[in-house]
């Protein structure tokens, strides 16, 4: 979407450096200007749920820090030197070279430089992620493509029950570690062996297992479709695409049944798992129901201004489980046009014939302008980013940041996925409302 953008909700393709950092002991090597890494880390990391440097992020990311000299004379030499020395200085298992605008405009032959290292048996891959080429979500897919093409090797055997899980975009989603862990837990409870490459304690060991999987499970409205297709092409691994981030009993139950059926699992066991979780979930809901039902100022209508993961997942939960009504939902992760129709379909498919209007825009300015023109009868609930704080004050709404940028929250391992995640979301939303009375 090539229009002006006010109030960003994603960054440029080079922001995929954070996806590399999400793989334990993998390190990005930037062939970019001196300030690119810092800004993108600030946007997706430090000021997005306080996800700071970690092991080798922030200011420790190797970078050629391109100057006028490389722009004029080319940066191949500088890149070669930087990779060579990064291999000497940095203690990591995989080096992912990422280019920025300067290098992509000038036309450095990065592939050629990286191949020299690959030929020498060094764990180096590359992706051309010049900022003008797209978003960090697009960049995230490029990084995975690079790893699939240049790093992963076909496996002779398939491990039955092994499932690779692909879902939210690390760092872009501040709750990614918690969310992936929850998906992993649910999938393992129904009797499969989940394999997730992002997050603590996984790293290359998990990555190397990817070609061995029985199938790939993509839990995402659209991000990653390209990658599971590539995995199918290269390794013959089939995939299941589940488009909704499952939050709450209705959607999580549906999710577990779909996965179980696809994997050919015994439905009795799946129903047992669902039943156990629902009992626990409703134990808490039963206790809080007095307040949830009787506090007169609770919001009835909600708006999401978020990534497609959350607009869809949260809408499903709030409508199908919590009984709220939707206003317009704004999808801000620059969904490519070929996926928009399918996502829109999902918003017509709630219980009791309820549907919600959807707007695809990555321009926060437009989203806020539209919201300001809506006439609300009560206080709306706005699930968006920190950008919505001022807006919410102006229109007297309740605001909770769930989507980038989350500069107003510290996020550690909180998850909004599954049964547990739904309880967290209920806690967060209704605590906000209760605090407002105090």
């Amino acid at each position, binding site marked *: 979407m090539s229009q002006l953008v006010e109030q960003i909700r994603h960054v440029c393709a080079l922001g995929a450096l954070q996806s590399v950092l999400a793989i334990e002991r993998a390190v990005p090597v930037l062939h970019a200007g*001196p300030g690119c890494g810092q800004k993108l880390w600030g946007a997706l990391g430090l000021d997005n749920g306080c996800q700071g440097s970690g092991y080798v992020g922030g200011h420790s990311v190797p970078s050629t820090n391109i100057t006028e000299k490389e722009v004029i004379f080319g940066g191949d030499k500088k890149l070669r030197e930087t990779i060579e020395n990064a291999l000497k200085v940095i203690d990591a298992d995989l080096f992912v070279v990422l280019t920025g605008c300067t290098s992509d405009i000038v036309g450095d032959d990065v592939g050629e430089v990286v191949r020299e290292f690959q030929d020498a048996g060094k764990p180096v891959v590359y992706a051309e992620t010049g900022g003008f080429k797209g978003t960090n979500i697009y960049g995230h897919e490029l990084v995975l493509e690079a790893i699939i093409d240049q790093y992963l090797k076909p496996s002779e055997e398939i491990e039955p029950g092994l499932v690779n899980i692909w879902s939210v975009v690390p760092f872009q989603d501040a709750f990614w570690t918690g969310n992936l862990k929850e998906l992993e837990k649910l999938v393992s409870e129904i009797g499969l062996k989940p394999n997730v490459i992002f997050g603590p304690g996984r790293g290359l060991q998990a990555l190397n297992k990817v070609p061995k999987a029985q199938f790939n499970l993509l839990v995402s409205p659209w991000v990653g479709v390209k990658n599971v297709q590539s995995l199918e092409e290269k390794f013959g691994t089939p995939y299941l695409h589940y488009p909704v981030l499952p939050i709450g009993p209705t959607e999580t139950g549906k999710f577990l049944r779909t996965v179980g059926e696809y994997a050919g699992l015994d439905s009795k066991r799946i129903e047992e798992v669902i039943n156990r979780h629902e009992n626990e979930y409703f134990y808490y809901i039963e206790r809080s129901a007095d307040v949830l039902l009787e506090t007169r100022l609770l919001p009835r209508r909600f708006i999401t201004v978020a990534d497609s993961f959350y607009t869809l997942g949260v809408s499903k939960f709030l409508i199908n489980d919590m009984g709220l009504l939707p206003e317009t939902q704004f999808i801000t992760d620059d969904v490519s046009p070929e996926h928009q129709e399918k996502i829109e379909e999902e918003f017509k498919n709630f219980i009791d014939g309820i549907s919600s209007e959807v707007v695809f825009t990555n321009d926060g300015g437009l989203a806020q302008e539209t919201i300001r023109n809506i006439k609300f009868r009560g206080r709306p609930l706005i699930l968006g980013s920190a950008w919505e704080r001022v807006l919410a004050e102006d229109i007297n709404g309740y605001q909770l940041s769930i989507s980038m940028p989350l500069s107003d929250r510290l996020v550690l391992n909180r998850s909004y996925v599954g049964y547990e995640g739904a309880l967290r979301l209920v806690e967060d939303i209704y605590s906000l409302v209760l605090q407002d009375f105090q």
Partner: protein
Amino acid sequence: MGYIDEKVVPKREERLKACNAFGGKACQLIEGSRGGCLVNKNRSFSQTCNCQMGLALAMVLTIPEAVTIMHGPIGCGSSSHNMDSYFRPGQSIRGGKPKALLWVSTNLEEQDIIGGGESKLEEAIIKADQNHRPAAIIVVSSCAPGIIGDDIDELTSRLQKRISARIIPIHCEGFKTKISATAYDAVYHGIARSLELELKSEAPGGLVSNGLDQVKKEYIKSKTVNVLNVFSMGRTDELEIERLLKALGLEVNFYPNFAHPDKFRFLIEAALNISVCPTHDDYFVEILKERYGIPYVLNNMPIGIRNTEDWLLDIAKELNLESEAKTLIEKEKKELEVELELYRSILKGKRVLVSGGEIRVAVTAMLLQELGCEVVGIRAYHYDQFGDDIYLKAVSGNPDLEINVATTQVFELVNMLKKVKPDLFVGHSGSNVWAAKLGIPALPLFSQPQNYVGYRGVFEVAKRAARIIKNTAFQRTFSENVTLPFKEDWYGKSPFTYITEK
């Protein structure tokens, strides 16, 4: 100087022979700087640091009633949402009505890189003017439009004719300079070329002005000074500066951060321009001296006992207030001494390494020495002639002190820390976590809500340093449980192994 007539200000490597890569003894650094042979250093391995666009944004985003347009792909300036939490409290603490930060990205994509980005910039400027009716529109230009050759000056001067807001083009393409402090010149250059710096209302035949009015005006002007504020000093520091200058009978106006675009018309109604950081303001104060004959002081930063004193005396000398200043200094120092006693006993002999902005690290090192600490290393983001005198003072008695000139470069920092093993690290934001991974407690070199400047700042820094040293449990357990991302044999090498001559 003549640079003001150019569209783009020269980079500091050229204008000031500034250097961003050095490792060695203090005496070599200063000698090298004075002999002009520090330039052209480089690195054969480097880590991501910052670019001049980031520093430019830290200045311009504070300006109220302005819309900033980031001309580039969407990642440039993307972390600016963190400025919102700096901008809004900054506004309200200065008495303004806090509004949300306004900025727009031209979101350049592949077709714009091929076809040029000027039409999108034009659209953005017109839209910003129509939708927000700002006093100023600040156009910040990034690498991509710089390489493809968008002519933002031609465009903005053409548009200015039909736009009510003042348009300020700022050239701060990241790849253009290794010295990100060039940003300060780039912003001041834009301000000086685009904003009105004088009040043009008193035309002949206008308001009747009698002799008494004129005398009054001259008197007020003689007692008014401009202080050029910086991003790293918050309102608490400004209040300390104001307190000290008011004690000398002076009225203080702060520019450029948080100053309304229209306020700049009163800029020349002052007897003196005062810098709080020599490497921040030299370009601008020189323009103001050349154009309007306003003198300036630019030697020092009011951090630490001695430097605050020198800074105050510099100002007093220009305004014939020396005896007042001396009385004030004596009184302040006497009060401070009593309060410092407790902290001196805690901090005595503590070994400290300081890392961050060129001048700030040197004056902070001196402050820590005044508290009884031993400075065992200094790291500066860059180095130029403005450092020479201050560094000479800071390392007097220890010309062999190890100095590293590096913009961030965590691998050099960690290597130094491993060897030097200080008791306390005082670092720029983004670096303190790396010291903590080695178990070393860290005091941030700056933090806007807190006080570092003036006599009050000395007390506050002493108090905070003592508190940080008192319980290092976090750093200890942290260092026992995390690993650093560098290979073991890196620590066996000199931290300056990858600094090259060319």
